[in-house]
């Protein structure tokens, strides 16, 4: 970007997978990076911080449960207190608790919706007023291909990701008048910890549906996120960019 001072970028779920790749991508422009994670141990976030430090950027990690409104509010108050603004918010934190709907517990439903969908609301809610004041800002929400096409075993996850799409569009409409763009990126089958747990049979089933014939890499998703936050995408808002190897068109 043309700004002389580095952008302040907040990424949820930034310690690994797609969120980590997004952090590394923003590090290339020497942005200030704050990421949230909710890992049981700090090894992934420490590793991410180490790489970011190696790239010469100011970065910090916070352990936050994005589903808790108050905690998120406090987290952002701290960020605004320290950095005075947030230029980019990437709502990436997400979990899966897969099982067929018939067997899905209320807890599994609630946990996934609370983090994947309410978490996006909570974080967005915390940044919109300051962004409105700045008359600028970029928000990118990570959805999923299954939010469009559904997927057996992912009633909770697919519903949460479809919700993210609608939330993205509504937020985009509400904030467009203030120079803030809000877009979504819907990854397909990406090589992360989330998909590593799938059986070979399920993986082969996915691969058979992908015209490009391979899994996506986190960096390929991060590139789309980064582009949406660049000047090149200044006239794009309320859109969902599909990064899925052609799995859904």
């Amino acid at each position: 970007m043309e700004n002389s001072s580095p952008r302040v970028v907040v990424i949820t779920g930034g310690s690994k997978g797609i969120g980590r790749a997004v952090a590394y991508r923003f590090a290339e422009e020497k942005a200030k990076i704050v990421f949230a994670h909710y890992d049981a141990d700090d090894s992934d976030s420490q590793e991410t911080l180490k790489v970011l430090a190696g790239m010469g950027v100011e970065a910090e990690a916070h352990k936050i449960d994005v589903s808790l409104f108050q905690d998120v509010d406090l987290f952002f108050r701290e960020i605004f207190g320290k950095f005075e603004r947030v230029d980019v918010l990437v709502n990436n934190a997400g979990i899966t608790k897969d099982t067929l709907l018939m067997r899905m517990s209320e807890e599994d439903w609630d946990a996934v919706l609370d983090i994947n969908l309410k978490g996006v609301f909570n974080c967005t809610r915390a940044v919109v007023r300051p962004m409105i004041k700045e008359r600028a800002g970029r928000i990118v929400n990570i959805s999923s291909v299954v939010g469009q096409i559904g997927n057996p075993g992912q009633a909770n996850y697919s519903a949460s990701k479809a919700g993210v799409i609608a939330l993205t569009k509504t937020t985009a409409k509400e904030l467009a008048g203030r120079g803030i763009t809000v877009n979504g990126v819907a990854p397909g089958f990406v090589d992360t910890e989330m998909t590593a747990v799938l059986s070979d049979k399920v993986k082969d089933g996915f691969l058979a549906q992908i015209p490009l014939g391979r899994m996506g890499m986190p960096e390929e998703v991060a590139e789309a996120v980064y582009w949406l936050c660049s000047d090149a995408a200044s006239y794009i808002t309320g859109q969902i960019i599909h990064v899925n190897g052609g799995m859904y068109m």
Partner: protein
Amino acid sequence: MSDVEGKIKKIICEQLDVPEEDVVPEASFVDDLGADSLDQVELIMAMEEEFDVSIPDEDAENIGTVQDAIDYVKKAVA
């Protein structure tokens, strides 16, 4: 000018970026001061913060002019 009045006018000038002389009691936020729906919400939230009051949506809908805002806040903090 009472304290409440002065503070409210200051909030309006800042939020809507309008000159002080335009912020007359009968001025309508939307028709005279150019506020859109987001501006109106921002104004209400700024007043809530300044005066430590809670303005429910159904009340906020009835605050259309500068005088409406002054009257509402004066009543709420009384």
